[in-house]
């Protein structure tokens, strides 16, 4: 038991899981931060990304690391479509408010159900997986598979890219401005509509990429998405709005908790740990994700 816990392998698995969570949470954080829309269908994009990658590999033999780009673009377009068709009108007139928040939540839930069941209908509920880079590599006494390493590297690189984008790019700065103070951002000339559109696109795209990475190491199934949404919520609650670095630390903490928690107990406990953390966090911080109401309004 101690051997397992002390092995680098478990630590590595925790890191890989944490990087995936960080990437999933990033997109959720963007959409929530700029529009106060809680996208409960976020995890379903992970699922869609997984399926796109699976089919590209199974039918066309395309390497997941290559189809990644196409997956990201497809999901970003879906984000653009969702924003244009469903959310712009609702956000447009009065901006955000409790009513819009509640309605958008129901909207996302409706969409989530539709997407999940559509996937179950088309792809059948059977989980699907493939073998890619599954050879075991040895680094010192740490044994790991190539696909895990690739997933960790890609997820970390993409997180870094988004952080740099938000820090240095004009559009990234505008996104952060929108998160901090919506009215003030509008006053100084931020094109809110365009930034919201971009947030949807980036948020959806990164989630799908996370799904592509997950599909390299785990099986994909139509109803796999929601735990990712929950994990992303946990990460955001711990990390904070617009604080993507904090979110990343939180994501790795959750990855460690889940991996070591399961190693210490059994796989039955995985969901209990995840949902337990989630419930405990929200109860501890009833004001929601961000205790800064003065900034929010």
């Amino acid at each position, binding site marked *: 038991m101690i051997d397992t816990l002390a092995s680098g392998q478990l630590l590595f698995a925790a890191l890989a899981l944490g990087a995936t969570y960080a990437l999933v949470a990033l997109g959720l954080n963007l959409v929530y931060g700029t529009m106060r829309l809680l996208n409960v269908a976020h995890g379903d994009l992970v699922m869609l990304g997984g399926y796109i990658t699976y089919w590209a590999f199974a039918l066309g033999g395309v390497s997941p690391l290559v189809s990644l780009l196409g997956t990201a673009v497809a999901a970003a377009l879906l984000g653009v479509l969702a924003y244009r068709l*469903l959310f712009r009108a*609702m956000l447009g007139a009065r901006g955000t408010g409790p009513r819009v928040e509640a309605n958008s939540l*129901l*909207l996302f839930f409706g969409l989530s*159900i539709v997407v999940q069941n559509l996937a179950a209908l088309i792809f059948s509920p059977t989980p699907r997986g493939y073998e890619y880079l599954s050879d075991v590599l040895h680094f010192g006494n740490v044994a790991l598979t190539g696909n895990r390493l690739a997933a960790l590297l890609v997820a970390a690189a993409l997180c870094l890219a988004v952080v740099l984008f938000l820090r240095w790019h004009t559009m990234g700065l505008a996104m952060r401005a929108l998160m901090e103070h919506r009215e003030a951002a509008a006053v100084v000339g931020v094109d809110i509509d365009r930034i919201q559109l971009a947030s949807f696109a980036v948020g959806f795209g990164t989630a799908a990429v996370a799904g592509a990475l997950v599909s390299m190491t785990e099986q994909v199934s139509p109803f796999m998405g929601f735990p990712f949404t929950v994990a992303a919520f946990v990460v955001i609650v711990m990390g904070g709005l617009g604080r993507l670095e904090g979110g990343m630390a939180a994501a790795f903490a959750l990855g460690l908790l889940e991996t070591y928690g399961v190693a210490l107990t059994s796989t*039955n406990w995985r969901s209990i740990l995840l949902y337990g953390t*989630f*419930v405990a966090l*929200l109860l501890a911080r*009833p004001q929601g994700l961000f205790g800064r109401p003065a900034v929010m309004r």
Partner: protein
Amino acid sequence: MNPTRDLVVVLALLGASAIVPLMGGDYWIGVGISTFMWVALTQSWSLLSGLSGYVSLGHVVFYGLGTYIVVTSWEVVPIAVALALAAGAAAVFAFVTGMPVLRVRGPYFVILTFGIAELVKFVVMAAEAAAGNASRLILGTPQIETLFFLMLGLAAAATVLAWGVRVSRLGHGLRAIREDEEAAETLGVPVARYKLLAFVLSACIPGAVGGVMALRNTYFEPLQAFDPMISFSMIAMAVIGGSDDLRGPVVGTAFFVFLSEMLWANAPQVYMMMLGILLVLFVLFVPEGLCGRLFRARTA
């Protein structure tokens, strides 16, 4: 809006449906049971969420607990006692969790209730796995006619309860909370107490409904008893029927039971998709629900 007239209408409808066992076979009795089940669940959900604006996405937890209680106490206590225990357990669970949970507001409340329901589901699964049960089977359950009238009674009870809340101080207080919680508190509405009371009241009948459904299904499997789709269906039915209206749940339920009878057995995924699409369309275009729309059209 006249809750008392609505009550008479709904109770008359429920009363009229009591002739179904005399006319139809087991199929129609089964349709009746699921109709009453959804009326009872949606009515209970609306009592809390429709009135107070605290949208619960975890009401299946009460249903599931009721199911679990009845299955585990099978052949230990009489059915009547088991059903009372099911309702009681749901109410106690609502009371205990309600105090911390109801401090959380808006979208966080919604996802928190969902998270709690999932957490309880996985805890029950782990407990059952530890006890060595993948599922449980119960034998010698009452006849389908008995279950029909039990469920009919629960639908009527839920409607009467929802009516009683609506015409009382509690109902007015909950509506005030929905419109503006701070203002309500300033004006002396005992906000915390009212929310908790509504939470408990909206939990007990789903507990009993779950118990009756355990008798109907004669087996228990945590993934089914705590299926989040049950919570989701309650919301969809209430939103489509109109959640601040006694007739709303009946309208929404009738619509969906019809849809589900056509699709559930052959194409459950298509059914769930229709549910999702309808919910999206109603949230976008008819947020006040069918009853709200019809009502407004008549007075305008």
